[in-house]
């Protein structure tokens, strides 16, 4: 057991006495973790966006002001939407916000650069938050106002139609009903009154006739009886007297009957005339009354009381409805939020990443290849022996770089061809793709040589190359946009050659852009290659090492 502890002790002693091991196992992981933390330090912020507000009305201005209050967006106002596309192409902005609102309605259109999905999500979220209050406070109230006005107009129109249907000048259904009813009632009334007159007249005539008949009969009987008594008093009783009496009685009866007939005839005639006159007058009067009544009930006459009353009631009811409308709420948002990607050609999900995969693979291959190749020769001493000859170190190094590149070009061609023909990647201008890949390979090799010049022994240089690759990938904006990176650390994306390779290939492959758009990246890559080579040359020429 003691021996085991001794071994452990010695191993630890060896470890801590080897400064490279300490660096590789403690410092490097800490640095790598720190870099990882720094490049993912924050949710995207300081995002450059272009803002175009073409309509310049109160609402669009209000929304523009709200968006400009954002803490995470850096707004660049544009004079036209086309300006925005140019800025997007140049990389000066990552998103275009187009406020297209007229008369309280319209859309806020977001045009995204598809290279930065994480950034785009944040922009949309922030713009949505910024305009939410504007939509609620301004857009919604205006929309409600508009809706209320429209509703009032609708009420007015419907009520006008309704009143026209019941009060209109033309023959309308209500008027027709009222007139028909009135006419029927009038006729029925006339009929009833005529019957009533007939009935009452008949009754009165009958009563009058009975009274008259009774009075006449009484009177005739009385006079005849007096006369008969006077006569009979002078005529002795007996048969003659009886016969005279009978004759008198008969005459009396006949006289009564005749008088009755005459009088009743006259009365009948008079009564008929009277009845007809009464009926006629009553009918006329009823007609007049009904006409007056009809006039007063007329809904087509605006000045008729009932028309006035109906109109008054409907107007009152209409105002009630309008007042109820004051609390109306609308559900639909009159401003839509639209987002789309700036993509001149259709691409697949895979295509977004294939442009980054090419330089990544190239850097991995060439960086390791160059680092191990140089370090191997340095560690073995062959390189030092070559340096002891008159051959210039630059030439030897250049030969190393070129040979590595030439070997790697086959690999580059294979990668590009596989992406193109096996996976159907959406590649742009083949010449530029190959040129970017070629320059990336050169930069990777020169960086590998530089690492070898710094570290020199093989195991350490491999470790160093892996960490360098890891850092290059993290800071390339392939996985994390510069907006994610800690503000004091953003410059690292600018000093990472992989950033320029990824950017150039994305421009070429996603947007079909040409040399005009990627020359800066190409120059940067050449610059990196020259810089690394220069530093490596200086280090390798330092014979004191």
């Amino acid at each position: 057991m003691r021996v085991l502890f001794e071994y452990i002790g010695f191993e630890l002693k060896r470890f801590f006495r080897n400064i490279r091991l300490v660096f590789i196992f403690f410092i490097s992981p800490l640095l790598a973790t720190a870099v990882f933390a720094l490049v993912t330090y924050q949710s995207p912020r300081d995002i450059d966006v272009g803002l175009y507000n073409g309509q310049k009305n109160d609402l669009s201005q209000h929304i523009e002001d709200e968006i400009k209050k954002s803490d995470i967006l850096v707004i660049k106002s544009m004079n036209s939407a086309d300006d925005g596309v140019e800025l997007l192409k140049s990389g000066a902005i990552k998103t275009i916000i187009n406020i297209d609102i007229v008369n309280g309605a319209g859309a806020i259109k977001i045009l995204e650069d598809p290279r930065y999905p994480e950034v785009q999500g944040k922009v949309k979220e922030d713009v949505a938050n910024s305009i939410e209050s504007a939509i609620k406070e301004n857009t919604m109230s205006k929309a409600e106002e508009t809706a209320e006005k429209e509703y009032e107009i609708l009420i007015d129109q419907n009520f006008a139609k309704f009143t026209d249907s019941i009060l209109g000048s033309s023959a309308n259904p209500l008027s027709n009903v009222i007139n028909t009813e009135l006419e029927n009632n009038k006729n029925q009334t006339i009929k009833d009154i005529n019957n009533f007159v007939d009935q009452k007249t008949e009754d009165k005539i009958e009563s009058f006739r009975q009274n008259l008949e009774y009075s006449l009969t009484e009177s005739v009987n009385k006079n005849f009886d007096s006369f008969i008594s006077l006569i009979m008093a002078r005529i002795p009783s007996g048969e003659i007297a009886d016969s005279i009496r009978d004759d008198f009685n008969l005459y009396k009866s006949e006289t009564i009957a005749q008088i009755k007939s005459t009088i009743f005839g006259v009365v009948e005639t008079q009564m008929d005339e009277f009845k007809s006159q009464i009926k006629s007058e009553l009918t006329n009067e009823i007609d007049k009354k009904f006409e007056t009544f009809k006039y007063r009930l007329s809904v087509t006459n605006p000045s008729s009381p009932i028309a006035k009353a109906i109109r008054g009631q409907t107007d009152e009811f209409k105002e009630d409805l309008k007042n109820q409308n004051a609390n109306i709420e609308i559900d639909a948002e009159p401003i839509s939020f639209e987002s789309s990607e700036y993509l001149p050609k259709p691409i697949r999900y895979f295509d977004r990443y294939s442009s980054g995969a090419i330089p990544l693979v190239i850097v991995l291959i060439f960086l390791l290849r160059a680092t191990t190749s140089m370090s191997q020769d340095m560690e073995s001493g062959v390189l030092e022996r070559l340096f002891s000859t008159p051959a210039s170190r630059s030439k030897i190094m250049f030969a190393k770089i070129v040979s590595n590149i030439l070997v790697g070009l086959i690999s580059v061609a294979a990668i590009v061809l596989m992406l193109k023909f096996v996976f159907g990647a959406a590649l742009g201008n083949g010449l530029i793709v190959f040129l970017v890949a070629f320059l990336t390979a050169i930069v990777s090799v020169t960086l590998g040589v530089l690492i070898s010049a710094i570290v020199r022994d093989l195991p350490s240089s491999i470790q160093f190359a892996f960490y360098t690759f890891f850092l290059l990938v993290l800071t390339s904006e392939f996985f994390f946009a510069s907006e994610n990176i800690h503000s004091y650390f953003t410059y690292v994306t600018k000093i990472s050659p992989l950033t320029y390779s990824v950017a150039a290939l994305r421009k070429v492959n996603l947007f079909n852009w040409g040399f005009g758009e990627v020359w800066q990246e190409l120059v940067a890559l050449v610059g990196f290659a020259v810089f690394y080579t220069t530093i490596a040359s200086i280090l390798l020429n330092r014979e004191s090492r």
Partner: protein
Amino acid sequence: MDKPRIIVSVNNLKKNFPPAIEAVKSISFKVYQNEIFGLLGSNGSGKSTTLRMIATVLAPTSGKIEIARADSDHRKIRNIIGYIPQQDLLYDDLSVYDNIKLFSFSYDFSDKERKYAIDSTLERLELLDYKKRSVGNLSGGYKKRLSIAIALMHRPKIIIADEITIGLDPDLRKKIWDLLTELKKESSIIFTTHYLEEAQKLCDRIALMNLGEIVAYGSPEKIMNDTQSHDLDEVFYKLVTMRKPK
């Protein structure tokens, strides 16, 4: 008798390796034309560092190295120097011929001159029959021959040999001694060795180094006389072993 011509002049040469290693501490010596000059000393005495500085692969911290007819132009110096490193620094994956050809491009040969230089050197080192063989398949002796061939193909005026006989069998060591003796006719040779009898046998003059300093300098005979020693082993014992810090 003519005064011998100085080929290499080392004055107050120092080499420090930061932070605290003084590998060479202000040494001075001269190497004459057509002589074999031996740099002797124990491991870590500064021999190889001194040779590497003369071969221009290592820059001195201070001091001066003057090479005849080369001023301080490294390219000129490298053209007249043939450096044989301690290890056989060769490309194992290349053939014997390709290895020597690769190094030949460091010199201003025409194609014809290059071919002659390579073939004649390979023949001199008895490597012609092996020229197509991969270096990785060669024995240590033949690797050493190839390493020497690479250093000699441009017929250098100064040959710097860093412990080139170490680990070789007696037969090959003898051959290398003969070769150095032959080369001495046309070049000056600076070489280091641990084998003191080898130095005593081959060297015209020696510098014995200890802890970065020269503790004895001159012909072996003179040094033995000065130290009243019978051989260089005794000199070494008196000047190096006895003075080692305890």
